[in-house]
């Protein structure tokens, strides 16, 4: 059988990357949470970080958001070294914990974040309507957050992240506690984000979601153990699904 000559990989310029990470490291009192890894995420890519609990996904994102100071290494977002300042308005961050104000209504939470990002009032009203539909809270705009279910709060948190229409999204387990039907809706929306050229970095536990990402990075004990397209990773590990692929790559490290 003839092998097609392998196409030479396209070379990317620095400005093609939304995020670059170089030997980033974080230690907590001797515990190495993130262990010197390099990573580049191109603009417009939907990138999934997967790995078991405690593998360092949240810590990595927090360092990128300037919430934790790296022990060593460096990272850039849209060319600005972290902790970024100028590019903050282009970033949307959904923390793993439901960081919304419980003693305010859904609408008041969204309004607060829109004001912090200096979103125009009219644009805000349009986006609020649209986003409430996406997260299935259009009936609850005036409800106090403390009266919502856990899943609803999570969805509000996502809506707050998206209110200013950011270029790059960091979503830390955005679909936890979201029922399957809404998850389908979420993914419809994520696809729309991708089509409009947004970069999405998310962490997830659900392998079916990971399959929908353009690129996934597998993390284990603070290291990146494998990276590639979901299909590519399955092929490379000669397995049938991502779970098995993860196990194969894990063995390689240990």
């Amino acid at each position: 059988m003839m092998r097609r000559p392998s196409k030479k990989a396209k070379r990317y310029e620095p400005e093609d990357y939304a995020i670059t990470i170089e030997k980033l490291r974080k230690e907590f009192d001797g515990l190495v949470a993130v262990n010197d890894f390099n990573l580049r995420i191109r603009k417009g890519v939907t990138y999934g970080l997967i790995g078991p609990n405690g593998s360092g996904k949240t810590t990595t994102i927090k360092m990128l958001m300037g919430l934790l100071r790296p022990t060593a290494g460096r990272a850039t977002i849209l060319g600005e070294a972290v902790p970024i300042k100028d590019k903050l308005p282009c970033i949307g961050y959904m923390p793993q914990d439901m960081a919304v104000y419980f003693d305010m209504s859904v609408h008041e939470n969204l309004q607060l974040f829109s004001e912090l990002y200096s979103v125009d009032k009219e644009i805000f009203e349009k986006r609020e309507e649209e986003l409430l539909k996406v997260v299935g809270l259009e009936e609850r705009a005036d409800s106090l957050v403390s009266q919502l279910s856990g899943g609803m709060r999570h969805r509000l948190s996502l809506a707050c992240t998206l209110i200013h229409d950011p270029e790059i999204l960091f979503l830390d387990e955005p679909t936890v506690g979201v029922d399957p039907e809404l998850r389908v809706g979420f993914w419809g929306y994520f696809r729309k984000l991708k089509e409009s050229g947004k970069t999405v970095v998310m962490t997830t536990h659900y392998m079916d979601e990971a399959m929908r990402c353009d690129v996934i990075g597998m993390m284990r004990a603070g290291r990146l153990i494998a990276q590639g397209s979901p299909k590519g990773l399955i092929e490379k590990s000669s397995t049938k699904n991502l779970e098995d692929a993860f196990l194969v790559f894990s063995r390689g490290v240990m």
Partner: protein
Amino acid sequence: MKISRVIAIARKNFRSLRHDRRTAAFIFVVPLMMMLIFGYTFGGDVKNISVVIVNLDEGFMNESFSWSIISELNDSETFKIVDIYTSEDISIDPVNKSIERVRNAEIWAAIIFEENFTSDAIMNIGSLRQGQPFVPSGFTLYLDRTNPNVGAAVTGELTKDLQLLLILKYHLTPPVILETEMIYGEDTKFIDFFAPGIMGLAGLLVTFMLTIVTFVRERSSFTLERLLTTPVTEGEIVAGYALSFGILALAQSTVILLTGILLFNIQIVGSVLLALLIIYLLGVGSMGMGLMLSSIAKNELQAVQFVPIVFIPSILLAGIFWPLEAIPELLRPVSYFIPLTYAVDGCRSVMVRGWGIEEVWIQVTVLILFALVMLLLSTYMLKRRK
């Protein structure tokens, strides 16, 4: 600094409070309760009242009633005699000089014995025997009755000493009427003296505690972290907090003032606006202090523990219930480190003495510095958290 973001943060704080009825009630009900409870029950023993004596009494024969009274005053714990002027000091115009010192609130009273004090008293003994009251001529008391308790203590002690003298020398017990010139606080009731203290105390405590509660909640619900990933800066967060809690302190003081006027008929001599400005500065400063301390604290419990640490010295040593002179000498320097001391003193001087900014600029300056330092420190502490 972007004003719209500062306002967004301030509005968030108000909105959170609006949905939290219990806290809102706390802001307004607590100071009113304090006013009721303390206002009616607190008499308080006053000691060490600083006075100046001018003794120009020439005596009569070998008698000098003034010196016997002065030696009684000297022995009493009520007074602290700062200076005694005699006829030898006549060149410095001791009478007017002493009155001036009362006016400047350096001392609470000036007690003046004139040349004819003893001789007039002796001349009058006859009429006293016929049951007339003793109205010593050649005697004037210039009194700052801003604190009615102090006023009562001064007149009480002087009356007692005069009576003692008459009993010892002549076995007479006539009623004694003192000629008193009120420099300040002619109609002051204890509640008038007390209301500015409550305004200050409530302004300090409520902003301080609410800041701690709000901020601790902000930390434990991770919204603080989230705020810090938006374009809002640490300075804007602090400014937003200062705006909201400063306004809250103002609203609270206004309610205290209105109830004071309506329910207790308190008298306000000076500018209400100036008094409110003082409270506002105090509110902003204690907000900053709350923000700073709760970002130093490792957890909620630690943060809450700062409340009594601030509360206890403020309530005891800031001169709310009794004048600073009544505070043990050892602790008095502490009083001057408590911002509330300046707020209460400033507010009281404005409301009861009718002083303007020319007279309370020191208090106002201290409070401005307090507010600025706290705002800067809390911004720094927030930045350091990252």
